[in-house]
């Protein structure tokens, strides 16, 4: 059993991990995190629990130990977004246990397969962590509670209906009986699981909705928490890899003899047809050898491709044919009949995720098994990707998820784990930890799609919108990553219209629909796919669409001579929830106050939540931006943990504003130019605005949290820049621009 947190700094050694699955029992191996100060202390000091055999689980979600510690099993990944604590809250609520005794662990995807996917979906993206699993995890907690009650009722020979629970205890009032969960856990395991459970009503929640501290903080403060980068296995070697930085390019040649006799270097080899890898006894040795080894690439057809080519491709898209995404009425006619036409063009660049922890995976391949330890947003997709590469049946493979040092969508791809297995397969019996250098991580991205948009809007004589045309030109994620799905949708990538989609278009897009009502509109997409791998980057297409829509509405409001708040609200009459978050940030953010400050607004609906922001900025005489404060509001339906929602809002702003201010990936000779944080800067504490978050759950749905708010930060700031300067900033990133120039 690999208990990551049992390693205290003083006992840290290279023997921290025990290899093999045989000792794992039910296979729950990696990432046991304690939520309470002293979970190992027995409840009753007079009882020695150590002689008792461990309790079996109550059910898949809940394992209760003799000392009443409750281990909640979480399938979704933890990458800092707090989902694991949130899900544990949901289970604990229905279980009615003592929150101070809750821990969590991650069952492996292999175990999930063996158990008929009892934990369901492992994929952790699209802000689905809570909203996509809340129903079945709460049911899991409720079922376990009912089984515990059933066991106690049988023991006392009383009707189960007469028993109650509280804080991990079962009571039978009439007989005066009471007993703790830990004492009933084994018997509960034998109780037939209920076919139906009744979930608590929201008004009765005691744990959900509370600003609980995260279960995994303590280990993050002492260096004890093991990320993928920190995995250690007996006899492990380290690897660094370099793949051709040009899409479609191949490895032409490499001179292993230049480095393979160096001390510590164990193996130099080609990986597939496009990469070369050095394996050594130290990662620094491996990476240095790789850096110094002569390597030649066969660059392929995109050898000359550059940012200028992408620009031209996207401009052609703006001029050329397009596919409709959301069309209502006759926007062309509405524009033709307008009193005033407003036009603007914006862009959104290619971006790397730049997770703080670069990609890495550790693999151990033997003649009859293959195991991987890695940070991943989708343990199951890693499992299904590595099995064919390993040459073993999937039942002989497993994936041990570690906590992720950031994911943001990048770690939903299994490419780095596949590489690790390819290497390990060449070294049977030797665990190999593959770590990408930051530079490799930057070159081998799945980049935020690059797009441009041209907007045209018509205003009548009273300053009302007659029609709106938004034409987006650029990359489709689905075309690159999910072509079958794109085909199902008739070749139109509906998700490029995220946040702009008409309600009722597609059940899978209902959480990304347009909440404004305009008399006529035409939102269309010219799909232009440059030779860059696109991917899901926190917020995905909502990032640019919120800018395209909401900055342009701001432009129209000013052209109409109307207050941007009043103007937006006029088109939100059909969406009281959206109007409410917008009004909330306006009120709290000081909108309309005559205090000489410069403010901008934005709002959008995405990932099932209503979000808005009011930014307050200053622009210096020489055109430099200072973001003073952003007031944000989110209506995510139910707010499982308000303090973590605040953290997600603040964090999403840093991620989104870092991009808006500083970041872009340019391409030269087919390869990304920016390779590290010196040329791809990220916000530091000095750049951080004050953030005030209004969590305003309206209580009748479950919306996402990790992503939606990222999308309103940039447009609110861009609109505030206009308020400060009278000039529109339409080209991202802002970094070198004189905003007054």
């Amino acid at each position, binding site marked *: 059993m690999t208990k990551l947190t049992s390693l205290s700094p003083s006992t840290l050694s290279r023997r921290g991990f025990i290899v093999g699955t045989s000792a794992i029992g039910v296979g729950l191996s990696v990432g046991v995190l304690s939520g309470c100060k002293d979970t190992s202390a027995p409840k009753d000091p007079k009882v020695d629990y150590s002689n008792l055999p461990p309790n079996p689980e109550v059910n898949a979600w809940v394992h209760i130990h003799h000392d009443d510690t409750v281990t909640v099993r979480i399938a979704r990944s933890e990458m800092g977004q707090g989902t694991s604590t949130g899900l544990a809250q949901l289970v604990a609520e229905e279980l009615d246990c003592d929150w101070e005794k809750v821990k969590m662990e991650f069952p492996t995807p292999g175990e999930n397969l063996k158990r008929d996917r009892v934990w369901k979906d492992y994929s952790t993206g699209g802000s689905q962590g809570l909203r996509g699993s809340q129903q079945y995890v709460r049911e899991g907690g409720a079922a376990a509670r009912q089984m515990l009650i059933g066991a106690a009722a049988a023991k006392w020979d009383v009707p189960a209906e007469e028993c109650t629970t509280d804080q991990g205890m079962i009571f039978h009032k009439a007989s005066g009986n009471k007993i703790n969960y830990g004492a009933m856990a084994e018997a509960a395991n034998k109780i037939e699981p209920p076919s139906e459970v009744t979930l608590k009503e929201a008004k009765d929640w005691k744990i959900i909705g509370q600003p609980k501290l995260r279960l995994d903080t303590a280990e993050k403060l002492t*260096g004890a928490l093991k990320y993928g980068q920190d995995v250690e296995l007996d006899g492990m070697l380290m690897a660094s890899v370099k793949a051709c930085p040009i899409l479609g390019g191949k490895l032409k040649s490499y001179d292993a003899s230049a480095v393979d006799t160096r001390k510590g270097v164990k193996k130099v080899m080609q990986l597939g047809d496009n990469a070369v890898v050095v394996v050594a006894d130290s990662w620094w040795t491996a990476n240095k050898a790789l850096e110094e080894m002569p390597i030649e690439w066969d660059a392929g057809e995109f050898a000359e491709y550059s940012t200028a080519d992408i620009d031209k491709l996207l401009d052609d898209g703006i001029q050329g044919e397009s596919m409709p995404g959301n069309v209502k009425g006759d926007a062309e006619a509405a524009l033709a009949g307008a009193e005033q036409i407003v036009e603007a063009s914006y862009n959104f660049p290619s971006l790397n995720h730049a997770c*703080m922890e670069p990609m890495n995976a550790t693999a151990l391949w033997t003649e009859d098994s293959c195991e991987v330890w890695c940070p991943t947003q989708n343990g199951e997709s890693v499992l299904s990707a590595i099995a064919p590469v390993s040459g073993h049946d999937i039942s002989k493979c497993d994936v041990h998820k570690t906590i992720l040092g950031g994911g943001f969508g990048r770690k939903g791809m299994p490419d780095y784990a596949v590489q690790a297995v390819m290497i390990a397969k060449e070294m049977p019996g030797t665990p190999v930890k593959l770590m990408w250098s930051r530079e490799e991580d930057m070159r081998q991205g799945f980049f935020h799609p690059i797009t441009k948009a041209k907007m045209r809007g018509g205003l009548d004589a009273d300053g009302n919108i007659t029609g709106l045309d938004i034409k987006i030109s650029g990359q489709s994620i689905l075309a690159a990553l999910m072509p079958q799905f794109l085909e199902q949708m008739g070749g139109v990538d509906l998700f490029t219209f995220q946040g702009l989609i008409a309600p009722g278009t597609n059940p899978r897009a209902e959480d990304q629909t347009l909440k404004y009502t305009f008399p006529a509109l035409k939102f269309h997409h010219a799909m232009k796919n440059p030779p860059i791998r696109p991917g899901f980057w926190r917020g995905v297409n909502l990032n640019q669409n919120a800018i395209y829509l909401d900055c342009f509405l701001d432009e129209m409001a000013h052209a109409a001579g109307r207050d941007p708040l009043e103007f937006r609200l006029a088109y939100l009459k059909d969406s009281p929830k959206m109007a409410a978050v917008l009004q909330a940030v306006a009120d709290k953010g000081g909108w309309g106050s005559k205090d000489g400050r410069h403010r901008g607004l934005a709002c959008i609906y995405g990932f099932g939540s209503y979000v808005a922001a009011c930014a307050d900025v200053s622009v210096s005489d020489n055109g430099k931006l200072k973001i003073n404060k952003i007031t944000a509001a989110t209506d995510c339906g139910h707010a499982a943990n308000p303090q973590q929602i605040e953290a997600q809002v603040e964090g999403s702003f840093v991620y989104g504003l870092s991009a808006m201010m500083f970041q872009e990936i340019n391409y030269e000779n087919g390869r990304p130019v920016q390779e590290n944080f010196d040329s791809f800067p990220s916000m530091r504490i000095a750049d951080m605005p004050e953030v005030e978050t209004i969590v305003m759950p309206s209580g009748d749905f479950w919306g996402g949290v990790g992503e939606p708010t990222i999308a309103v930060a940039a447009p609110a700031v861009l609109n505030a820049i206009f308020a400060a300067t009278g000039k529109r900033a339409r080209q991202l990133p802002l970094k070198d621009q004189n905003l007054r120039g």
Partner: protein
Amino acid sequence: MIELNVNGKTVKYDGDEDKPLLWAIREDLGMTGTKYGCGISQCGACTIHIDGQAVRSCTYPVGALEGSEKITTIEGLSEDGSHPVQQAWAELDVPQCGFCQPGMIMAVSALLKENPGATDEDIDATITNICRCGTFARVRKGIHLAKKKL
């Protein structure tokens, strides 16, 4: 062979002297709390203390040490996570993914040792660690809270 003083213990290092301290600490000494984030002194994930000063260990070759310096890593900042900065961080639930936080905590603890009354301006000028999760608001609150606990 160099003798190093790490977290109050003397350890022998007989590896490559060009190797940055980061990798000697992580791989040769087996202490993985100090993280690799960029390797070029940009992000601060690898921050440790050398004689109480915050140093980005990813570009600091072992050979540049005399041997007499006192090296402190996150594992040695306190025995049990009770350093005022760690306490403040726990109270405010500062970390998100947490990957940058050992470096952040080491940078902040060095600042507060030098300047126990650090102002917001001091913080802005000194704490330049990258946090991709964006914990800065709580980091700032945490620094001010830690000041009270010193």
